[in-house]
């Protein structure tokens, strides 16, 4: 069991997309606990990738292929996760704000939220405020989650909050934000309900906001 999880962890770190699918299938067939696969294999593996990136050992290509491997593993794992039906924890719409094409972090947050039982509607990147509003009207989510990686696009989080307010939707949803230049102080400044520094904290935050 330990070995299976270690193999999955390694597949994430090495970005082995084929290998990870086989490993996850085998682990599930052998009865390895799905949430252990998620937490100790995938999430821990992605944490290691993040660490290697920070240390200058990994660069963007390694990060991207690791995220791809994690995504295909999640697709296999999702139906087995003990979090009940998909969406049991609540519904989240997520996107990277207008003008910003960085989606690696946002995708990770989305994957981890799914892993934790949230139904996630991903609006993609470069998402204008109107699209957040329209999606909120259409999907009636519990949480609107925004990501931004540029100091020049952070401000579009503020205009999205304002647009939700304008549309009379502000008190129907919780708003959470994240991304490298974003801070807790910025979240309060623009009237968001919370900020998370990384994907695991984003899950904890979404849970607390919907509790």
């Amino acid at each position: 069991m330990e070995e299976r999880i270690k193999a999955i962890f390694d597949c994430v770190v090495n970005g082995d997309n084929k290998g990870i699918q086989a490993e996850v299938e085998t682990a599930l067939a052998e009865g390895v606990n799905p949430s252990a696969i998620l937490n100790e294999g995938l999430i821990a593996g992605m944490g290691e990738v993040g660490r290697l990136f920070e240390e200058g050992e990994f660069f963007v290509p390694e990060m991207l292929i690791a995220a791809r491997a994690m995504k295909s593993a999640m697709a296999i794992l999702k139906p087995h996760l003990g979090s009940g039906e998909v969406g049991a924890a609540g519904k989240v719409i997520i996107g990277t704000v207008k003008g910003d094409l960085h989606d690696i972090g946002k995708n990770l947050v989305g994957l981890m939220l799914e892993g934790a039982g949230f139904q996630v509607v991903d609006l993609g990147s470069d998402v204008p405020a109107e699209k957040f509003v329209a999606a909120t009207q259409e999907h009636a989510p519990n949480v609107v989650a925004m990501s931004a990686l540029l100091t020049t696009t952070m401000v579009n989080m503020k205009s999205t909050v304002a647009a939700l307010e304008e549309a009379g939707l502000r008190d129907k949803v919780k708003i959470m934000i994240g991304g490298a230049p974003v801070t807790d102080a910025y979240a309060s400044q623009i009237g968001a309900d919370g900020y998370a520094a990384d994907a695991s904290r984003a899950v904890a935050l979404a849970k607390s906001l919907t509790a």
Partner: protein
Amino acid sequence: MAKSLFLERLAAGKPLVLDGATGTNLQTRGLPVGTPSDFWVMDNPEAVLALHRDFVEAGSDLILTNTFGSSRVHLGHAGLAERFEETNRLAVALARQAAETAGVMVGGSLGPLGEMVEPLGSLAEADAQAEYAAQAHLLAENGVDVLVIETQFDLIEARAALRGVRFATDLPVVVSFSYDRGTRTMMGVKPAQMVQVFSELGVAAVGINCGRSVEENFKVLQEVRALTDLPVWFKPNAGLPLTNPDGSLYYSVTPDLMGEQARSWLAAGANLVGGCCGTSPSHLRAIAQVVKGQ
């Protein structure tokens, strides 16, 4: 190939002074954070012209057009694709207007497309090449002296960019990378890879612009110089942005310090020197004084 003023000046052997930052300086002059600096070519051309003039006055021998993000791809994301020709044409005219009197040269700035090229991203290499060709065509047609493919991080995109530029014009080309992970680019490209690939492709100079710190940029300069006889373009950023209590930004390296360091850039063999993000006209003046005083 027609005679090139840029190549002549470069061949004369004296180091040339480039310009400083566009975006961060326009921000201190009122460009709202969140608005790309390229937009001011159309919305506030007086401010763009004034900044060009400040650099010329501070001692630039070559200034760059405010077209870093004026590819069709970038403008398209902002819903401004139909103004592609207009903004590139006007940007060259503004730079030319500032350069004219002083006999200063104009470089056409071409920044990354902002989307990743295949296989990691979804932009096809041929499309990337065509986008660079289209913008280079406009810049050349409107009268720049040299094209500068700058702040690159991916060998595939930069190579496509060079092919595109070559397709559009015979003007000389500089290719400059941003080593913002220390001495590697965000994609992991090493100085040696840049030198190897682009010296074989016959660029007029290879370059280093923007990164984490002046010191790390300098290390890259030393590495590059050791590997090639090509002219080296060097535009480090004035350190990293720090936040004032009121939320406005300032850069950690002062003009004096930048001027001080410019001495070592020349000693290390840089041939074209200026600054990137955070480099104000005062920083540039300090650099120019060192270069011209040599």
